[in-house]
């Protein structure tokens, strides 16, 4: 059975109930599980035991790349490839190169951040078992879910369902893979 199922999904009506249920699932030691919320619920990361996102590191790499790109582009074009005397200004100076390097820093940071976010989230993923759940529309609207995946080593259809029920989950359903 567990081979045929993606996992279990439980419904929670309010944010606090979800929060406490998440704490319970976390404490039960599950790793492959998730909360589905219509908006980012404060504190839920901690309740789920999630670590701080690594997006900032990717952003930092992007930013540094952007800055270096800007500076080296301006240095190479102006002071190496084609040395033109423009208004008596030096061939290269970090001062006049700064605005462009600065803008490129931001641009590259933005790209890195978004790409990083997508990659970390595994998006775009238009097909997903959770999305097939017929109540998922409510999950985008006003209802909260907890999904525990079958591939979790601790997953056991009965125990897991019991855990969710205990935590206050309603309408606990198995998801097709």
């Amino acid at each position, binding site marked *: 059975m567990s081979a045929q199922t993606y996992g279990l999904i439980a419904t929670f009506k309010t944010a606090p109930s979800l929060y406490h249920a998440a704490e319970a699932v976390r404490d039960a030691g599950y790793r492959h599980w998730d909360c589905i919320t219509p908006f980012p619920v404060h504190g839920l990361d901690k309740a*789920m035991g999630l670590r701080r996102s690594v997006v900032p590191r990717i952003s930092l790499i992007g930013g540094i790349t952007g800055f270096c790109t800007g500076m080296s582009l301006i240095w190479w074009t102006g002071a190496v490839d084609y040395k033109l005397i423009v208004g008596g200004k030096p061939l290269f100076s970090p001062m006049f190169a700064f605005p462009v390097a600065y803008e490129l820093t931001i641009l590259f940071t933005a790209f890195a951040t978004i790409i990083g976010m997508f990659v970390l989230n595994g998006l775009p993923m238009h097909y997903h078992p959770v999305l097939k759940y017929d109540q998922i529309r409510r999950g985008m609207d006003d209802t909260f879910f907890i999904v525990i995946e079958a591939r979790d080593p601790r997953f056991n259809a009965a125990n897991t369902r019991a855990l969710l029920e205990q935590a206050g989950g309603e309408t606990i359903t198995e998801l097709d893979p």
Partner: protein
Amino acid sequence: MGHADHKAAAHPILQEVRPAALPRAVLVENDRSFSWITERICGIIEGKTPVWWWVCFILACFVASFTVAGITYLVATGVGVWGHANPVNWAWDIVNFVFWIGIGHAGTLISAILCLLRQKWRTSINRAAEAMTIFAVVCAAIFPVFHVGRVWFAWYLFPIPNSNAIWQNFRSPLEWDVFAVSTYGTVSVLFWYVGLIPDLAVLRDRFFAAGNKVRATLYGLFAMGWRGSNRHWSNYEMAYLILAGISTPLVLSVHTIVSFDFAVSLLPGWHTTIFPPYFVAGAIFSGFGMVLTLMLPLRAVYGLQDLITQYHIDCMCKITLATGTIVGYAYGMEFFIAWYGANPYEGFAFVNRAFGHYAWAYWIMISCNVITPQFFWFKAVRENTALVWILSIFVNVGMWFERFVIIVTSLARDFLPSSWGYYSPSIVEVFTFFGTFGVFSVLFLLFIRFLPVMPMAELKAVTPQADVHGGHAKH
């Protein structure tokens, strides 16, 4: 927005101390439920297209056609169809550019700076404000692109390797502008889009449920398969925070660089170091003016009084007042610096601004930008929506004239009196500018018709029932 409180909540000491909650302003009135918010906002998109929308849309298209016609004529014939001439080589083109860019700034400001400053009241207006930013940047970009003499060579502005082996001049503020404005446009679109993803997912599912597969697919494609996973929210929130974080210096840098177009030159009246803060303040000022001008009618038409509350209007009026006063201070400071600098050329530029050929423009600017916002000191004014709306239009007019005064009066009478001149616009530029309001309106109308005008996820996050700790945030 959640991350801020989340961090505060995470702090152990705060958790223990549990400080007494200050009474908070009501951001969503009448204690609305989550689904009320969803219904209300998605309803705008799902409902039948109202007649007024069609009327406005056709009117906007008509107005936009003026820009299209004006630009077509310009490109086919030459920049001479505008009123430019020596010594005024920049006029309405750059005035309009700076004007639109300035308007755009409020959008980024509301979404990014207020986000960083944990001003939760921004949530109801930030989506529309960001849209406004993007559309304003589109309108702004029209002018610098088409004001050049040979627009078909505008690609020379980008560092593309070519067989002429020549590169750009990165000392030019105009080249900085190219990077600043294109970065600004790109980042604004990305920021806006990232904010839209969860809402697009809502629309995807709702349209699917309603059986409209085509629109569900379209929204679905752009929703990228968003499923509300909290693991996603975690990265998403962080990315959104970073985007807000970089948008803030970006928005400041963009208008700083736009002001460099003038500050870096040596023209009296342009050559002044106070331009960057002065321009940024002016941009915020004009941007909030425009936000008010747009949001107040929208609020009335769609009955969003519970989402855009009197508190929001009050906040925006106060910001307008503050920035307007900064701008007024800058006007005064310019005169002081000119006098204190004891440079006769500089001194004359400012005296001439106030009392020369273009004094009328200067005094329009002063009355609209310095005097108008002072009405916002009065609570009665701030609470009178109609009056706020009218004053916001004055602010828009005043800020347009500010750019006109800076650009045209300085150029018209510079160093050598022999080359002094007078600029007056041709009908072509007047219509081209007029048309950009149509361009903006077309885009904005499309936006309110097809995209959620408010960020549902964010709105829900600021409702009392979103708090996982139950009562303590309840007032």
